[in-house]
Every structure is written in C-alpha cells, then in structure tokens.
C-alpha cells in the first residue's frame, strides 16, 4: 500500500509541477494584463490557488482530526499530519504573495483588517499544531492534543470567509465562487483554473506521499525510527 502510495504521490507531484510550469508560461506570455492593476495582478494566479489549497488542506486536517478523536485510528492521524504540513506550506505561500501584491495594490504590505489577521492567526494555529505534537512527551497524547487544536482552530475558517462581508475590508471579495457566477474574463478564468488544478495536484501529491511515509514510519518498531527515516529518503 505505502509503496503504491508513494508512487501515486510522486506522480501527482510531477503532474502538479508540470501544470504549474504551464501556468507560469500562461501567466508570462498568454493571459492579458488586468486593466486597473497592470502586470502585478498576475500574482493573482499564485495567490488565489494557494489560498484555496490552504483551505482544502485545513479542511482535511479538521476532518481527519475529528475522526481521530472519535475512532483513534492511526490512519486518520497520519492523514492529519500530512495535510497539516500542506496547510503550513501553502499558507506561507499565500501569506507571502498577499503582502507582495498588497505593497503595489494598496501601497502597504500589511493592514490590520480582519481577513488578513484571521488568516495569519489560522497559520499560527497550525504552528501551534506542530508545537503541541512535538513537545508532548507521550506521543499518543501529542497526537490527541494536536487533533484537538486542529478541530478547535478550524472554527476560524468560516469566520475568515465571511469576514469580508461583515467588515469593510481592503481585501477583494469573492470573484469566482459567488451566487451570480464568476465575474472574471474567460482567459483569466482559464489561467486561474489551470493554476488551481496544478496547485491542487501538487498538494494532493505531497499529501499522498507524506501520508504513505508516515504510515510506513509508524509500522517500524519505535527504536529503529532514525534509520528508517534515512532509508526512505
């Protein structure tokens, strides 16, 4: 299973990276400039998919963690860690591209407004997730605590999504997922969707791979972890 998992993971990662390379080409040479913002708007095609992938990852962590708390199934925990690493990584991409864009679009890197702040806090929650995991001596307890943190922390997500509507905010509102349908020009939409597919595949690939590795590591006796870690890479 886990060998298969690793191969599937690698395949997905490869496909994801290839798609993202394609998106780079599209962003650089194919898609037209957005009228108001000019060339910086192209960071959109990284920022938005990163944000969505983060939410996807966070959702997986929350669900897997809830399942782990309920059934104490090791597989659920392995899935949660694998996805949580994704959330941390793609969240970081979002948090880096956002300010870069903001510097040009709003004239400031960061603004203390709810959407941005809540997003940053969400990222801190996942930092806490790994801190708890690693700092609790009893590994079983560490897993349980981390799961609790993930479940409780995920309650932030709906708040983030509605925060743009509740508060006057600098951050743009939804442009794709809205009741009246996408309001984006079709070539921009195509680029965005391609990029989204790439990011999603990359994430799912990393997720599958990490999951398989995690499963494998847990099956080996605890004293031998150090060596197997080396062997896997």
């Amino acid at each position, binding site marked *: 299973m886990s060998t298969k998992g690793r191969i599937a993971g690698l395949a997905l990662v490869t496909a994801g990276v290839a798609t993202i390379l394609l998106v780079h080409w599209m962003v650089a040479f194919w898609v037209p400039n957005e009228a108001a913002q000019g060339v910086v708007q192209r960071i959109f095609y990284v920022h938005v998919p990163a944000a969505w992938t983060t939410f996807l990852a966070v959702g997986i962590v929350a669900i897997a963690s809830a399942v782990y708390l309920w059934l104490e199934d090791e597989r659920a925990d392995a899935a949660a860690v694998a996805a949580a690493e994704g959330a941390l990584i793609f969240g970081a991409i979002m948090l880096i591209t956002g300010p870069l864009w903001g510097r040009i679009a709003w004239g400031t890197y960061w603004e203390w407004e709810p959407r941005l702040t809540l997003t940053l806090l969400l990222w*801190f*929650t996942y930092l806490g997730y790994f801190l708890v995991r690693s700092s609790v001596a009893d590994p079983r307890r560490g897993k349980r*605590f981390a799961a609790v943190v993930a479940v409780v922390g995920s309650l932030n997500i709906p708040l983030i999504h509605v925060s743009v509507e509740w508060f006057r905010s600098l951050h743009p509102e939804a442009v794709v997922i809205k009741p009246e349908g996408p309001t984006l020009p079709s070539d921009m939409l195509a680029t965005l969707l391609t990029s989204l597919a790439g990011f999603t595949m990359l994430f799912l690939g990393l997720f599958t791979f990490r999951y398989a590795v995690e499963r494998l590591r847990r099956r080996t006796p605890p004293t031998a972890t150090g060596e197997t870690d080396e062997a896997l890479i």
Partner: protein
Amino acid sequence: MNELRRAWLITLKDLRLEFRTGGRLLAMIAFVVLAGFLFAFALDQSQVAGRDVAAALIWLVILFASTAGAGRIFDAEEEEGAFRHLLLTPVSRPAIFLGKTAANLAVIWLVTALAFISLTAFLGVRDTGSPAAHAAVFLPGTIGLAATGTFFGRMSRHSSLGDTLLPVLTFPLLVPVIFFGATSTARVFLGRPWPEISGSARLLWAFAVGSVFIGAALFRHVTDE
C-alpha cells in the same frame, strides 16, 4: 445534578486554594492598579486621548491576567500530583472542566473589575457609559476567556514547553474576542446606542457558549490518557 454539585465542589476547592492567603488578593489588586498606573504614565496623555486607549488596555490586562491564571489554576493540582487522584474519582470530565472554569471566571471577574476601575481612573475617563451595556459585553467575553484558558491551560501542562505554549494556542482564538470586546467597550464609553453594540455582544456570546460546550465535550481528551 450530582455532577453539577461535584463541579461546584471543585470550584470551591479552587477558590479556597486561590484565596487561602488573603495577601494573594491584595497582591492582585496591587498588580492591576500598578498596571493602570504604568499605562497612564507610559502613554503621553497630551497626545493620546485616554478613552480611546482605556478600552483596549482593559481587555489586554484581562487577557494577560487570564492567561497567567490559567497556568496557575493547574499548578496546585500538579504540585503533589493531586490531579491524578482527582481524575481517579468518579467525577466526570465535563464537571471538572466546568468547576475549574467557574473558579477561573471568578478570579477573572475580580481582575476585570479592578482593571476597569483603575484604568478608567488613571486614564481620566470621566463618563464610563451604561453599566448594563458594559456587563453585556464583559460577561460573555470573560466566560470565553475563562473556558479557553482552562482548556488549554490543562493541555500545556503536558507539554515540555509548559506555559509558554499557552499564548500560542489561545491567542489565535482570543484575538477576535479581544477585538470585539475592546471595540464594544470603547463604544459603550462613547455612549453609543445599543444596536451598535449588540452585534459584537452576540458574537461574544456565541464564542462564550461555544467554548464552554466544546471545552466540556473535549476536556477528556486533554486529561485522560
């Protein structure tokens, strides 16, 4: 009902431990008063209007006090390993959670009252607005803080990072509380009408009820092995 009585016993025990020495109360009063004094001193009042800052600082003092208190509430339990024996009695986990949260809350209320009085006094806030409106904001806010603190206070006991972990875990949840709390309190100071405050108050209540229920439901995961 039996479990509620047990929760109450735990609250009483915690409060007794907390106030065993009358001096502890005294020390806390002094702490909050001095903090108010310090803020008044540190902020250049010719440039900053006291009222704008008072609301924010009251909530920050409450936050710090409750974060510190959450750690302390489990100190006495661990000193001689008593918590382990408490867990070995038939008392249910939600009852322990509620009992300790109530004790935590009582202390937070004291701090809140003190912080309110000392900060408004030192920062020269003459007209503090409607007491009922203040209560409607502080009540849910402090309940949320107490429940969150109790829950994660227990969790951080098992971590080698100890209390340092506490703010990392609680602040992401509490920042919204502080934000809504501080803005609402500021509005009450300004004598704004209730509809401008009720939205935040509702959110604070949602957080309070949610954290108490979720905390009670999940508490066994942070106590039992």
